[in-house]
């Protein structure tokens, strides 16, 4: 609405207010403590197996203590830590590629999925091709990507975009199909044209599924990015992991892996926040449901 919604007694529940509310309430539930216990168990087991008992093959695995010391070391043994600019270069290059790929896959995948769901002819025409291409793993595309795109950066972005595009398009299509058929009918009764129905019913109606798709998509983007960077490229966390393996700098492999985990988690959390912001109606309904 151009004029903006007037404030009411019910008030606007912003995504941030919702987040802080959920956060403060979750502190009073077992959830965060279970989460901490889970991490403690994981790191504890890893520490004991690799550094204390040096149990079996875990002896050759860098332990968490060793990795953390290296990660936070101003003078890193293997030349890579939070204090070296190179580290941030790798993180930034990966993040940049994921963002570009995410923007491209969303920009193409959402409209494509909307039309797949909206037009039966379009779906019958394109969906079989789409479903045939979808199971092909990203790694199988590597040779073609390198042949098709000569530059260093484009093959990596192409590969990263690919899997994300599938996830976004498929979920968007399912989102359109999930819309209660009464909604477009009601809109037609109220005098909406075909395009108005598309704009006011189909798009917002599919939004919950679209955001599910985007969360999957951003995760899949990291997944394929690391695979792509291992094969080509000069920078990036995937490249870092692979080159550290070649150079026998094992702690850096784990620093790279954990960095992907942390940055990846943050990006999908951001997608979730954006979804809550765009779907106030849903946030409020769920809040009423006590979740």
């Amino acid at each position, binding site marked *: 609405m151009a*004029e903006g919604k007037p404030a009411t007694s019910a008030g606007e529940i912003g995504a941030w207010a919702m987040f802080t509310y959920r956060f403060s309430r979750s502190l009073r539930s077992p959830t965060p403590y279970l989460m901490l216990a889970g991490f403690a168990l994981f790191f504890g087991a890893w520490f004991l197996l690799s550094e204390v008992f040096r149990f079996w093959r875990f002896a050759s695995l860098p332990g968490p203590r060793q990795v953390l010391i290296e990660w936070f070391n101003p003078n890193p043994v293997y030349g890579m830590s939070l204090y070296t600019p190179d580290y941030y270069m790798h993180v930034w290059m990966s993040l940049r590629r994921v963002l570009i790929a995410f923007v491209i896959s969303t920009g193409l995948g959402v409209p494509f999925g909307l039309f797949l769901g909206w037009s039966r002819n379009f779906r019958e025409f394109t969906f079989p091709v789409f479903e045939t291409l979808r199971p092909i793993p990203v790694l199988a595309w590597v040779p073609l990507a390198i042949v098709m795109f000569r530059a260093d950066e484009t093959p990596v972005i192409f590969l990263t975009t690919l899997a994300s595009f599938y996830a976004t398009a498929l979920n968007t299509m399912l989102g359109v199909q999930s819309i209660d058929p009464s*909604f477009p*009918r009601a809109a037609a009764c109220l005098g909406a044209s075909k395009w108005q129905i598309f704009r006011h019913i189909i798009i917002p109606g599919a939004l919950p599924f679209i955001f599910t798709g985007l969360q999957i998509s951003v995760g899949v983007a990291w997944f394929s990015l690391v695979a792509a960077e291992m094969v080509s490229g000069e920078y990036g966390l995937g490249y870092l992991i692979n080159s550290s393996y070649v150079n026998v700098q094992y702690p850096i492999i784990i620093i790279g892996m954990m960095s992907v985990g942390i940055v990846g988690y943050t990006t999908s959390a951001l997608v979730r926040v954006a979804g809550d912001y765009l779907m106030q109606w849903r946030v409020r309904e769920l809040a009423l449901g006590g979740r």
Partner: protein
Amino acid sequence: MNVRQEFATKGAIRIQNVDKVYYAREGAVQAVSDCSLDIRAGEICMIVGPSGCGKTTLLNAIAGFHDITGGAIHLDGEMLCGPDRPKAEPGPDRVVVFQNGALFPWKTNLENVAFGPVMQGKMNQAQAREKALGMMADAGLSGVEHNYPGEVSSGMRRRVEIVRALMNDPKVLLLDEPFRALDSLTKSVMHEALLEIYYKNKVTIFFITHDLEEAIFLGHRVAIMTTRPCKPKKILEVDIPHPRNYSVLTSPRFRSLMEETVSAVHEEAVKAFEAGEKEM
């Protein structure tokens, strides 16, 4: 006694010899057969029949969601659908209120009510909101304008949906078991609310239900339909004067009308049950 003196002059529906055949997996299904019914301008016409008898098919044909196989339907002398145009065009002169409710959950109640005139280009956003606020206040909906439909009770939602329909000055309101999902106490409140809205806005109401008590309480006439294929079996004139309120339910006339019709409805229900008809 003349309850129809203040009737509107628009909104007469003439259903003539309508047939509707579905092609389902089990073969052709005759949902409606040779159905003729004249609905007078401004009356509340209740359509009663067991679940799956084909009454929703009739509503869908009037609303323009489905085509018909034969016959014709006219609204105020203009053909909606007929031999050369089997499917009517949905439009704001015949607004449907759906069985499970179809308020758009991503729009606030106010945005829902203001939706029609803005889509039709009849009003701009500000004008539509102003009119919507007025109509919602009239229908006792002040205070929930800026809530989303998911935040208010189901009875409220139904009222918002009826107001959303009336925003378009329709000739006919097509109600498809709108109160089915409500508990009986809420239902009784909604009946009086609907009558109150009806007395303020003269429209023709085509109301589908399987609840005979609801039908006699609300309707000027009650059409009892046969089970599939669907056609009027008995048309009952309810000679209880409007405006009505809930005291009508205990009146002797109401009871005798119930007695007159209950066996006809029951007969069809048994037939439908034995045929194992599913909701279509």
